[in-house]
């Protein structure tokens, strides 16, 4: 009976499997991996808690609608940068979304599968990895100087549009590729041209994913400061843009500017501005999720 008890654990003489030790090691490793996965969540929580603790008490409608005050820092508001960010979102959307969708449609639906197109795809992938400051430099030269747009919100939006274009194209392409071939073939079989197929069948099917991708790309643009600083956004402003050619500020720039000032009031102000920025981002993400849910409910298949 004793042999049967340990029948499974019996080893021929030369094996020393040290199963207990390996089990313990395995357990520790599993624990370490779990902790690593948790660490990300912990840091996120820590960050949000810290920001809230610093600036949460400053959040109010007044904070959103008043300008900055040099005399009494704690009375400052983020009206100017907030409106600058709003303008940027609008203009960047107008510039980047149509071009991005058009480019992706061409690459995915119309382009021949040739070596040249592969190079084009590689080019877009590389552009997605170029640092954002470089787009700022590009914008400074091309839009601010050559196109004589000056340090305007339009120039800033154009630089941001170029920044997010590669990512927008890639996610749109993925959305288009996810549409089953059978839909296209059904359209062709009733005599539709390629453009008609894309316009009436493929695009509508891919639209939720495209919109989600676009909104995520725009969220990235919302948080960018470096290219805007290079293009010439101002850090301190008591005006709001009224035309695309006006000067502008933006929330990330204000955050950068305030975080350089060491006194405690500014630490709190920065925290509050960060909360506003995160709120804007949360709003756009919620919009993305909402649009996707709405579309999926409407869809018949």
């Amino acid at each position, binding site marked *: 009976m004793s042999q049967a008890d340990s029948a499974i654990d019996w080893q021929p003489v030369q094996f020393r499997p040290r199963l207990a030790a390996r089990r313990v090691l395995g357990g520790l490793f599993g624990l370490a991996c779990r902790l690593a996965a948790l660490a990300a969540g912990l840091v996120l929580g820590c960050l949000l808690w810290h920001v809230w603790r610093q600036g949460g008490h400053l959040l109010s409608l007044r904070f959103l609608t008043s300008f900055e005050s040099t005399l009494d820092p704690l009375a400052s508001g983020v009206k100017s940068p907030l409106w600058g960010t709003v303008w940027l979102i609008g203009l960047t959307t107008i510039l980047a979304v149509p071009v991005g969708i058009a480019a992706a449609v061409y690459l995915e639906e119309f382009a021949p599968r040739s070596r040249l197109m592969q190079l084009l795809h590689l080019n877009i992938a590389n552009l997605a990895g170029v640092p954002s400051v470089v787009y700022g*430099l590009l914008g400074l030269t091309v839009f601010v100087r050559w196109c004589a747009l000056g340090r305007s919100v339009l120039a800033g939006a154009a630089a941001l549009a170029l920044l997010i274009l590669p990512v927008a194209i890639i996610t749109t392409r993925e959305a288009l590729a996810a549409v089953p071939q059978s839909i296209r073939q059904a359209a062709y079989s009733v005599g539709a041209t390629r453009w008609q197929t894309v316009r009436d069948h493929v695009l509508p099917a891919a639209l939720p994913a495209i919109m989600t991708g676009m909104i995520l790309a725009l969220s990235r643009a919302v948080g960018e400061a470096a290219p805007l600083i290079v293009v010439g956004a101002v850090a301190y402003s008591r005006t709001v843009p009224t035309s695309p050619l006006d000067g502008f500020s933006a929330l990330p720039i204000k955050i950068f500017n305030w975080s350089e000032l060491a006194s405690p009031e500014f630490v709190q102000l920065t925290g509050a501005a960060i909360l506003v920025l995160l709120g804007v981002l949360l709003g756009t993400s919620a919009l993305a999720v909402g649009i996707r849910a709405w579309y999926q409910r409407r869809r018949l298949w």
Partner: protein
Amino acid sequence: MPRPECERQAATQPDGAKMRRWQRLREGGLEGVLLLCALVSVATTMGIVWVLFSESLPFFRHVPLTEFLFDRQWAPRTGQEYGILPLLCGTFLISILSLAVAIPIGLAAAIYLSEYASRPVRQIAKPVLEILAGIPTVVYGYFALTFITPHVLRPLFPSIEVFNALSAAIVIGIMIVPTVCSLSDDALRAVPRSLREAAYAVSATKLEVSTRIVLPAALSGVTAAVLLALARAVGETMAVAIAAGSTPKITLNPLVSVQTVAAYIVQVSKGDAPTGTIEYQSIYMAGLILFLITLAINLVAHRIMARFREVYE
């Protein structure tokens, strides 16, 4: 992709031929417009290359290459010193440190997600990682300066400066963990299940299977992921500008203030360097260096990734 050919009966539509010609013209025009949009990306690349090279050329006419490469001081505005080494050193220091943070956490988290986690856990983890990746870098910089340095680092290293490379490196590491984790997770999952089963069948534990069979098999995919994360760390600007200060120096000490190539560009742009001055030209030169470094890393990473995909798909 099949080209649709439909022959309508010309008899049923008297001007069918003309309509088809007009339709084909319109289609061609539309395709042309779409092609133009796709070519915007080509124009962007050409624009970047042209702008960076042409605007930094005057800089190199002013500063000899040997001085640029070997001078150990960078002070264009005050001291007329134009050695790039301090900026490169700062970039290198912060990037390597951030990888030291991101690789263990990202890879361990990836192993957890692909080898240990159940589906509900994976469904929570993905959104959390996306949120982490979506937080703007200025926020990370603020977090580094106002929380990590005073409350985490100062207790450990009392002599640490207010602006230091370590805090910036830590937050950049956290920022790129989602990149490392999700790309490594993809690479690990690409390893076929049969390989894992073979390893379990010779009496190996999960630790041994994960680290000695699966991970080596996914190694090139993981390497590509790390390289892409490195490129992001190199290009990172705002967190460094806020948390690491703006004093370029050649040092490997993470407790002092340094400046990176990218942060330098922002520092000058913030100020009032007039067009045409050497300071103004220096930011284009810095941009060129940055562009070339990240381009090289990205090209290598994509090459490795393509070869990895060939093996497993």
